[in-house]
């Protein structure tokens, strides 16, 4: 079950990461890695800890134990906005587009951390420079903006006729599926070394799901490294090089999709654990219901 020993250092490495909420472990000692060019999926039923893990990887939340490394460097202590500069781009489970901004502006914001004025690090001078650039808009800024815009339109064109006619419409006016597409376009605009997708097909109908699947497959074919968090097992079958299965906060297995698909542990994780009353009854120190005091309420006579 343990993945093969890798010669190269993984791009993202999760080492014995845990996250406890009030003593309850939402993520419990999870370890795995993603190599450059790989597509890895993390799957599991509702409440398995996928979203918590995703938040830990993307810096929205911090682990209570363990470490996460990106390209060999620990992520601990970095502010949330520093992740983009490292080359990590994410989507959100419920499609967090900038509602009142146009489709084009949404996608352009994906390139925020790539812009020249944002990349330079001098503290106060840099603030003034950004202000001056905004005000005066010198040639270099205009060129950069034009280049980014061309790139954004190119990315949007990859979705065919879905988004190109709507470049200047506010994102809130889009259909749900289109919002998800805008989110992915925005993430691609970062030119991410690692693309993190959080349930990219949640709430989509089968046709839209298939379309999204094809799109992600194209990205993968281009060599994009992808971490996919998914609920639907069948969806990740075609896409993933490796699948990590979580349940109850723990990694229960990891392996090739076909193997995972037929793993009885995985199926049980999804459909729920079978009832094992004898095992539990042994620890049971008190009866669930006191037999002597059965309810004698007559529901038909009950109301009012």
């Amino acid at each position, binding site marked *: 079950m343990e993945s093969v020993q890798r010669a190269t250092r993984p791009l993202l490495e999760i080492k014995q990461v845990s996250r406890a909420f009030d003593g309850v472990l939402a993520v419990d000692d999870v370890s795995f890695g993603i190599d450059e060019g790989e597509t890895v999926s993390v799957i599991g039923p509702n409440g398995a800890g996928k979203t918590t893990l995703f938040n830990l990887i993307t810096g929205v939340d911090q682990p209570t134990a363990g470490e996460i490394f990106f390209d060999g460097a620990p992520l601990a202590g970095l502010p949330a*906005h520093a992740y983009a500069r490292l080359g990590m781009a994410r989507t959100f489970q419920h499609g967090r587009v*900038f509602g009142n901004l146009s489709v084009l502006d949404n996608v352009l*914001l994906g390139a925020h951390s790539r812009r020249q004025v944002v990349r330079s690090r001098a503290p106060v001078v840099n*603030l003034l420079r950004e202000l001056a*650039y905004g*005000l005066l*808009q010198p040639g270099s800024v205009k060129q950069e903006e034009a280049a980014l815009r061309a790139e954004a339109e190119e990315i949007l064109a990859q979705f065919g006729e879905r988004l190109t006619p709507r470049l200047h419409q*506010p994102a809130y006016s889009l259909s749900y599926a289109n919002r998800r597409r805008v989110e992915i376009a925005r993430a691609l605009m970062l030119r991410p070394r690692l693309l993190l997708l959080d349930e990219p097909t949640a709430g989509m109908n089968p046709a839209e799901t298939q379309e999204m699947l094809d799109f992600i497959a194209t990205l993968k074919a281009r060599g994009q490294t992808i971490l996919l968090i998914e609920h639907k097992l069948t969806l990740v079958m075609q896409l993933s090089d490796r699948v990590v299965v979580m349940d109850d906060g723990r990694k229960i297995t990891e392996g090739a999709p076909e193997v995972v698909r037929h793993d009885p542990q995985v199926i049980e994780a999804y459909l729920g654990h079978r009832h094992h009353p004898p095992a539990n009854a042994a620890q049971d120190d008190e009866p669930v219901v006191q037999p002597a005091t059965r309810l004698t309420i007559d529901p038909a006579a009950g109301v009012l």
Partner: protein
Amino acid sequence: MDSLLRTFADQTINGLVIGNIYAFIAVGLALIFGVGNLINFAHGSIFMVGAYVGWVCVTWWGLPLFTAFLVTTLVCALLGVIIERFALYPLRSAPPIAPLLATIGVSFMIDQAVQIIFTPNPQAFPNPLLAYRFQVGGVTVGAIDLLIAGIGVATAAALYLFLRFTQWGWALRATAQDREAAQQMGVDVVAVNRMTFAIASALGGIAGLLVGMYFNTVYPTMSFQATLKGFAAVVLGGLGNVPGAVLGGLLLGLIESYGVAIFGATYRNLFAFVILIAVLVWRPNGIFTNQRRTAPEPLTGTFIARSRPVHIPAWAIAALTVAALALPFFAPNPYLLQILTNAWLLGMVALSVTLVTGTAGQTSLGQAGFMAIGAYASALLTQRLGWPFELSLLASALVSAVIGVLLVLPAFRLRAVYIAIATLAIGEIVNQVILNWDSLTNGAMGITNIAPPSLFGWQAIRPHEIYWFTLVLLILAALVQHRLVRSPLGRTWRALREDEVAAQAFGIDLNRYKTLVFAVAAFIAGLSGAVTGHMYSYISHETFTNTTSILVLTMVILGGMGNLLGAIVGAVALTALPELFRGLADYRYLIYGLTLLLLIRFRPQGLLGTD
């Protein structure tokens, strides 16, 4: 030593009595916040109405004190129910900032109505208990002190029994703890909300009556101060925490009382606002709980309705600009020009608010504070250091930007409704510092004989000259801002407004862009304040008040949040219209309040749409 001890004891009693009254106000605010998740800016107005109702009962009708309390309680409870039903209930599914703004509108209307009925002048409130005073172990206690303490304890006990042992009390607590679960138990949460308003308003009214009796005077402007003091007490005790509000009120009263004894009476109001900011920033759950910070507001916090700006062609804007520039040739009416000059100056502030609130989503209720900083900076630079006006104007705007950012910096981590309260308190702090920093600002006297605006020898003194001067500044400010909001920087600001979490995920450093937006906004507001000072030749801590801040926010909502032309249209409409229709001038705040209320309800996107 003995006298020091006696002073301490006297100040303690004094502080507890005032604190008792703050506790009344705070409990009402805490109940409303707990049940309806609303910060009620009209609470001080109800408090003030309570004071006036009591005053009418005692001085006009000569009713006994007990009856006066009864009438006050009933009238204020009824007023609370009316406010809830007509101003707030219709907004129950609007973003949380909408009902907050509605309560500001209501408070404007109530305050002005009281002014119209009873005049703005303070009214003497003869203490019906006379001046019974007695000594207890060397400490002086008045009958009124005992009355306030007695009513305080009795009310707290009644409230406790009500919440603990009655059906409605349970419903109230259940609704405050989990609205949806309470509904599933069959609780009519709408009725509970209304009842909460009635109780809170009755408590506020009683507090007003007690304050009137304690200080022997009632006046319309007591309302807003009461609201702010109540907020400070509530925040101190933890938002929505009723016992915490009582403790917070008492503590605030004590702090003020000791502070006044040490620093002097003019410092009284400073303590509340510094505490308000400090607690909001460092202990957002109040000082009595150890909980981690409050859950972030939902992302619907900013008041930006989903709409697209109304398209106004460039030629129309150019034509309007030319017409405005040419107006003095065709209508050289000094009165008209003066009014429009005011509109241009407030228009600049409106631009700054529309930038920080509309574009970047940081609701600011403290913009007048930045105006005051600019005005004082320029007045002092020209008078004390003899700087030329041109230079001091720019320098003072820069000073406003720098100080403005430093003041708001600790509040950057706050969102939505909390940033609104924090900026309001910051505006108050600026005025309190001006009032108390005698050596620099000349304190309550203000600064007189400020030189008129001038440019390289040309002086703007006559109405049409100052008209042009301010109009050109406004146009410049609008152009600068237009360019900024259309740049990549403007796009980044909008992203901040729309979704802070998603913005961060794409590398947007929130603090950096909040710094930038507050700097630009404070710069423009400071510029306007500086010119205002030079135009009037006199400024004081009362020139730029939180009323101005709120008025400007109303202008921005009227024009459409984030909409530059809208900000200017809003400024002209709200400055000029009440003046042009002469008869309306006395009712202007009634009109402002009503405008705000109607806009939020029926056209939240404003006249020209949000951008």
